[in-house]
């Protein structure tokens, strides 16, 4: 087990003490344990859909105010894992779960913890932009409050702040009353991000946020993630390895429900320790 004291991005090279050496057997011990600034810790997380065992003993640390990417082929469980982090997994009929997930040290599956409250601390953005079609842009941003029957302090300020954080303010500030679905795909996705940020969460989960977007919109969202990292902890699931390489600080590679390797993004993409990781990221999965 390698221990890593959480590096600040510029001091990265000097503080990493890893020993990722390519092991021909492909089973090098390569899990990275983040000792400082852990926002979420997963311990032996298992998940099932009916009889299908989709997550097998996943143990992982999500670093605070960093972006962690989950990569892996389709069906490897990365979306399932991310949905365990905000307890959206259990909403699916037939879904089962076992294990511990700690948010700031507290078990989120504890009986006394209301999933509804959890989801206000851990927000989520989905693959297809899903603004509420019957609400205006402004009401979409405030949806988390209004639909819950609550009134935020200074709603106009909140709308502006959230839209600015989502890099959408300048494009929509004059048309806040237009329907949410009148925007382009990329704008809709940023609207969904603003909607999630309006609740002032601590963690933002992103499930393939750019897969339905064109390259320019993708670039804007990726740029956004760089900015958001300074305030929020980001966990992003992505099919695109280049995106994971561009955007994240840490990368976890999942395969068939197992965590194969977890390390800094730079290590994973220049010298992965596990042969399976190497095969997947270089395109040798035939």
């Amino acid at each position, binding site marked *: 087990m390698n221990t890593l004291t959480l590096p600040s991005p510029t001091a990265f090279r000097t503080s990493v003490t890893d020993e990722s*050496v*390519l092991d021909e057997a492909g089973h090098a011990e390569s899990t990275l344990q983040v000792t400082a600034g852990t926002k979420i810790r997963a311990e032996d997380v298992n998940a099932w859909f009916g009889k299908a065992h989709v997550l097998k003993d996943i143990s992982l640390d999500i670093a605070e105010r960093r972006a962690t990417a989950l990569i892996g082929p389709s069906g490897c469980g990365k979306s399932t894992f991310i949905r365990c982090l905000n307890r959206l997994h259990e909403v699916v009929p037939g879904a089962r779960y076992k294990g511990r997930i700690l948010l700031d040290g507290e078990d989120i599956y504890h009986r006394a913890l209301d999933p509804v409250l959890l989801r206000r601390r851990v927000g989520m953005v989905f693959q297809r932009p899903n603004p509420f079609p019957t609400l205006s842009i402004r009401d979409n941003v405030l949806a988390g409050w209004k639909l819950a029957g609550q009134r935020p302090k200074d709603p106009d300020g909140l709308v502006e702040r959230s839209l600015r954080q989502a890099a959408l303010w300048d494009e929509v500030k004059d048309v806040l009353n237009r329907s949410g679905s009148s925007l382009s795909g990329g704008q809709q996705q940023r609207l969904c991000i603003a909607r999630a940020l309006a609740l002032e969460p601590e963690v933002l989960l992103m499930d393939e946020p750019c897969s339905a977007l064109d390259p320019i919109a993708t670039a804007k969202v990726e740029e956004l993630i760089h900015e958001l990292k300074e305030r929020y902890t980001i966990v992003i699931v992505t099919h695109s390895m280049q995106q994971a390489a561009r955007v994240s600080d840490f990368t976890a590679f999942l395969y068939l429900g197992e965590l194969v390797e977890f390390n800094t993004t730079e290590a994973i993409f220049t010298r992965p320790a596990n042969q399976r990781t190497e095969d997947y*990221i*270089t395109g040798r999965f035939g």
Partner: protein
Amino acid sequence: MKTHTDRAYEDELGKLREELLLMGAKVESMVAASVRAFSERDYDLARRTIECDHEINRLEVEIDGFCLSILARRQPVASDLRFLTSALKLVTDLERIGDLAVNISERTIDLAVDPPQRSYPNLARMAETVQSMVHDALDAFVASDPAKAQWIIEQDRVVDSLYSQLFHEVLVFMMDDRSAIHRGMGVQAIAKHLERIGDHATNLAEQVVFMAKGRDIRHQASLEPGTTT
């Protein structure tokens, strides 16, 4: 070792590998030829060796261009990325070795005016060691074998010490016999070129380690991390 799902990509990497080996083989034979040309005073061979440089330069440009194209189109990662960046560096070192072989041949031709004199066993030893260093570096590249690299790095120390011995030897002779100065300086220059070839062969070896293991051991004494020269 699994192959890339994309056959065309796999073929491109294979082609790159072949071109590198071709260049390596040519450079190796250039070094051998230049050394033989000196020891046998074969000026024709020396001239032919100098001609070979065109081919080496052409290969350098071609391989560099090919690497750039693959980098742009394939966005390689991990071992592929290391292979490509190593290829770029290997090509530079190989081209320099070729230039040095040319330099040796030029010196040989230059020394034609001098009568044959004593032989220098240290020089012969240097030449032999350096040639096997180049050969082994290329072997290590083919086999992706970082263990050989360690041996090559050690040999470089041997070459360096041979060089300084030879340098002083020649210096003494030159001080004794003024007519031997032209020849002596020629020999010293050739020795310097050989020593430089050894350095470049060491670079090749270090790149092979990086390519195979992902560890950058340049400017370190050995494969052990943390040690420095």
